[in-house]
């Protein structure tokens, strides 16, 4: 049976982890490569780096991080943040990313999704969607890290990118992100019931039952979380044992 995936996400700024874990055995808590190695050893199903480096001049710092991670972690690695065009994708893949997530650039230029999927394969292209509930049961796509509202309906957009070749959708609820109040399972269920590619749930995880709800209520294929892992509240192993105890198929 296909397992539900647990994906820890690391925010990387200028090649350093933002909000790093305080593992005692870490030589350098701000080194994303070291953290990735720990998550890998703990049983993470995939890894995700989100580059939040403001200046594009400093983006190359991430490439070194990607390269070193790929040399040490033999599980899928998704990298996103500031991906604008085919060259950006090509560079990240060359340095060892397995998948590249595209957010604002896909909204600005929907053709990029098809071009990227045709060139690198659907399995390589993740479309990151930042969604916000603008009226009851109605979610709009936001861009630029959630700062800019568009008039695009989330479900319509997800279906469109899936049709154009996106291999999966990373769906973040802007309403829940950072709140630790659980995924927006209504949003998730709305998208997962209407879109035929895997959906990764993101935004709002605060405890173990939130993760379970994302699968049972939101019907997500994978769960992405940042802070619960970063601050050492839960280990990947604990999360998986909890889900397994609740009859969710996970890789242990």
């Amino acid at each position, binding site marked *: *049976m*296909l*397992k*539900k*995936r647990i994906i820890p996400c690391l925010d990387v700024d200028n090649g350093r982890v933002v909000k790093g874990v305080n593992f005692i055995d870490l030589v350098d808590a701000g080194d994303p490569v070291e953290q990735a190695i720990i998550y*890998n050893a703990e049983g993470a*199903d995939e890894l995700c780096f989100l580059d939040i480096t403001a200046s594009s001049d400093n983006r190359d710092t991430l490439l070194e991080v990607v390269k070193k991670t*790929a*040399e040490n972690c*033999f*599980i*899928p690695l998704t990298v996103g943040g500031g991906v604008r065009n085919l060259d950006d994708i090509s560079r990240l*893949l*060359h*340095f*060892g990313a*397995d998948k590249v997530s595209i957010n604002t650039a896909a909204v600005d230029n929907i053709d990029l999704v098809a071009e990227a999927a*045709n*060139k*690198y*394969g*659907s*399995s*390589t292209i993740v479309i990151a969607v930042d969604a916000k509930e603008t009226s009851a049961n109605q979610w709009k796509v936001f861009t630029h890290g959630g700062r800019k509202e568009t008039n695009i309906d989330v479900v319509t957009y997800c279906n469109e990118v899936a049709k154009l070749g996106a*291999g*999966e959708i990373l769906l973040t609820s802007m309403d829940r992100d950072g709140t630790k109040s659980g995924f927006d399972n209504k949003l998730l269920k709305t998208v997962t019931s209407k879109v*035929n*590619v*895997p*959906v990764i749930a993101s935004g709002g995880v605060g405890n173990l039952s939130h993760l379970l709800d994302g699968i049972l209520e939101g019907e997500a*294929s*994978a769960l992405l979380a940042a802070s619960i892992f970063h601050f050492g509240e839960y280990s990947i192993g604990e999360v998986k044992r909890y889900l397994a105890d609740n009859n969710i198929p996970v*890789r242990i």
Partner: protein
Amino acid sequence: MNLAIINFGSGNLHSVHKAFESVSSDLSNPYNIVVTNDPKEIQSADKIVLPGVGAFGDCKNAILNIEGLHASLQVSVLKNKVPFMGICVGMQLLADISYEFGTHSGFGWIPGEVRRITSPKEYKIPHMGWNEITFSDHKLFDNCEQGSDFYFVHSFYFQNQKSEHSIATTEYPDQITAAVCKENICGTQFHPEKSHINGRKIIHNFLEWKP
């Protein structure tokens, strides 16, 4: 011993290279691993790996567009019986024909067809993530446990004409070929380079394989 990883521009080339290098470095006699599309280097290799992600037709055309590549693979693999491993689309290319975005002929090294996965609506396509496999007795699965998980990502699958060429299967929800073998030619639908410890076992076994 030389191992050639065929470079035709596939996206997972780097991951495959790093994984084989890492596993090989643990051997008492590590391989000299080259990433190449040079027919001469390919014909002097003792083992050949063909990675592949993307669409079947694009991969096939990319291979045909490199002068001498297809011919040198045929000489090494079919005539000289050099052990060969295809990964994902690299495995699907072994089939006679694929129906992904049109109709494309494959290498025709292992009889069968590549078809789109048909599954009920709740099974998302691509089949993406960790899924368990059941395997038959084969060197490739030495030290592996039945039911262990491997990382898959694909929307099309290899339908073998002869059941003896399927050496491992997974379920989504119907049975899907997870690995194939015919004489010196093997292939995996899953990505050993992305399958953590289980994947390393497969790579190790391929490096030690003497068909």
